[in-house]
């Protein structure tokens, strides 16, 4: 009985802490969506011989943050009085807040011989957090330093670094032949990767940033080649008679999925990076093409015409169970699995025009991202899942465009004559 009373008292005591005055709860909903307002106050040149490099750094950083789509740049005419310093008082912070900025970025540049040192400050005016960073490198590669500063600012605001330092490989007819090229996210630094005067197609940038796999016809057969990015050499990887195309790297860079022709139809195969363990994954009398890996490496999405028209299917690699993903329209191809894993981007044909769509892995929320702007094909996600690069004929010949993952803010990336297609996004070099 004593124990029973003890239990009664304990229960009552447990309830006692809840006693008190009712707490007021205020509901706030319906947020607005806006870019993050930031002011870049400038870079001070500390070099003995002053040049234009500080101004260039300022301009590149402004461009980087603008094309990221995440920032609203506060105009210089709205600036309060600014003098270079390392800390700001509360009154100065308040003044900047009143100008509309919620963060400030500034820095110093010191050029010594062929090297450059950049020191930058980022101040979150709301949180009053000051972040600083020092970067140095060759003067000729100062753009990379600026991209790293931009990525750090993006990380401060979103918690995740940006992709300003990434590149995009693509097929270009600029030289008259279909060659593989690459270009920076900001549209600068275009580099030709192949120059074999043959036909080079479907580049695939390895997640470890070492190799670009591509299909080349230099032996009059569509063979698979590796371009080694460290020593700029090319080697034949797979030259089976028939088709060796559409390579897709597994997330750990250890395997490749690709399309090969066996008999009358093309099938999906897997092969190790060292060329071992070539294994056929699909066994149908229909055409299977364009494999893409899920970020966890457990599933593959690919295109199959097993129902009479090209549609996207998802296969579980362990069980080999395959599920049809797309049902909308009679042509859905070029799937690319998002790095966040929740969606697949693809090219679909509606009313005789190709457009970019994304769809959830369960087949729901099929979103059309492009419309009434030429033909749009070959969608590829950025490594952070924020953007999609694709080729579009909206301005004549096909050129590469980058848009936000929700289809907004498209901007043209490449401007060469002849046109660019089949993009592949590099991983981030500036890791977390």
């Amino acid at each position: 009985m004593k124990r029973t009373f003890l239990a009664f008292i304990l229960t009552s005591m447990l309830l006692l802490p809840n006693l008190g005055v009712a707490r007021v709860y205020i509901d706030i909903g319906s947020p607005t969506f806006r870019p993050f307002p930031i002011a870049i106050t400038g870079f001070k040149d500390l070099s003995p011989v002053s040049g234009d490099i500080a101004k260039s750094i300022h301009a590149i950083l402004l461009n980087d943050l603008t094309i990221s789509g995440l920032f609203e740049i506060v105009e210089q005419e709205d600036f309060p009085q600014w003098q270079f310093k390392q800390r700001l008082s509360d009154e100065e912070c308040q003044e900047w807040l009143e100008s509309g900025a919620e963060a400030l970025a500034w820095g110093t540049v010191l050029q010594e011989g062929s090297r450059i040192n950049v020191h930058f400050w980022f101040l979150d005016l709301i949180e009053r957090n000051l972040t600083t960073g020092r970067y140095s490198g060759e003067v000729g590669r100062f753009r990379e330093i600026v991209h790293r500063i931009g990525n750090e600012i993006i990380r401060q605001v979103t918690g995740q670094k940006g992709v300003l330092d990434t590149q995009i490989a693509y097929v270009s007819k600029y030289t008259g032949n279909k060659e593989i090229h690459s270009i920076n996210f900001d549209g600068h630094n275009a580099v030709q990767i192949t120059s074999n005067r043959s036909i080079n197609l479907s580049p695939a940038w390895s997640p470890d940033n070492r190799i670009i796999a591509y299909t080349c016809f230099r032996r009059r057969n569509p063979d698979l080649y590796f371009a080694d990015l460290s020593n700029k050499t090319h080697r034949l990887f797979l030259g089976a008679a028939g088709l060796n195309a559409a390579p897709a790297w597994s997330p750990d860079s250890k395997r490749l999925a690709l399309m090969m022709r066996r008999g009358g139809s093309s099938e999906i195969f897997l092969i190790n990076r060292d060329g071992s363990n070539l294994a056929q994954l699909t066994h149908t009398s229909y055409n299977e093409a364009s494999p893409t890996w899920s970020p966890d490496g457990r599933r593959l999405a690919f295109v199959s015409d097993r129902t009479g028209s090209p549609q996207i299917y998802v296969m579980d690699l362990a069980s080999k169970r395959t599920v049809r993903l797309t049902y909308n329209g009679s042509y859905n191809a070029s799937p690319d699995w998002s790095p966040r894993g929740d969606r697949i981007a693809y090219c679909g044909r509606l009313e005789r025009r190709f457009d970019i769509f994304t769809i959830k892995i369960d087949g729901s929320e099929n979103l059309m991202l492009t419309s009434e702007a030429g033909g749009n094909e070959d969608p590829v996600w950025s490594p952070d899942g924020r953007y999609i690069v694709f080729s579009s004929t909206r301005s004549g010949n096909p050129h590469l465009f980058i848009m936000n993952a929700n289809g907004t803010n498209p901007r043209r990336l490449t401007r060469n004559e002849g046109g660019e297609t089949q993009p592949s996004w590099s991983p981030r070099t500036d890791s977390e």
Partner: protein
Amino acid sequence: MRPIEKALLISLLIHLAIIISMAVFPFVLTKKHYTPVYQVSLVTQPEPKQKETTVTPEKKKPPVKKATRVEKKAAPPKKKKTVERKDNKEKRSLTRVQRAIDDIKKKVASQQKVKEAQVRTSRIVEAKRNAYFDTIATHIQANWSLLKNQMEDVGILTTDVGLQIRRDGTITKIVIEKPSGNVLFDEFAVRAVKRSAPLPPFPKEMKEAKLEVTIGLSS
């Protein structure tokens, strides 16, 4: 006592404890919700004067009873020869009684007035407090924004942010009481609150030195 009976008794006592607690402290589990968009705080006007007149007569009853009691006590004359004296005495005592009744009436009326004034004041304070919460809500709502091109598809999330506000509107404490599960969303919720600082000062009718409120910021 068998174990099953013991268990039943313990269960009964626990339930009894909960029921008693709920009955004695019904306000314990309530949360006052202020949703600025859909809820309107109705401010009660001070009551019309007519009400005062209707209330007052009811309260007059006890003194009247007293008066009749006094009359009964003073009624029977004891000696015929001293009738006039007695008449004068009666008159004087009646006057005294009447005065006493008037005093009581005045006292009751003034007490009533004080009570009504207190009710009026507490209603005004309550209305002012509600209006202040609406002001806070409007203030923070104006600053409630998420990052464009990054947070459109966060889904349905809510972050509860606890605030301590001083009389002058200064926010002295900000804590995430209930995170949404999305770190960036929580950061932007706190940001919206910090961007709203300082909040407007308390209305003078509110006597509290500080307030503690929870702001639920939803996507």
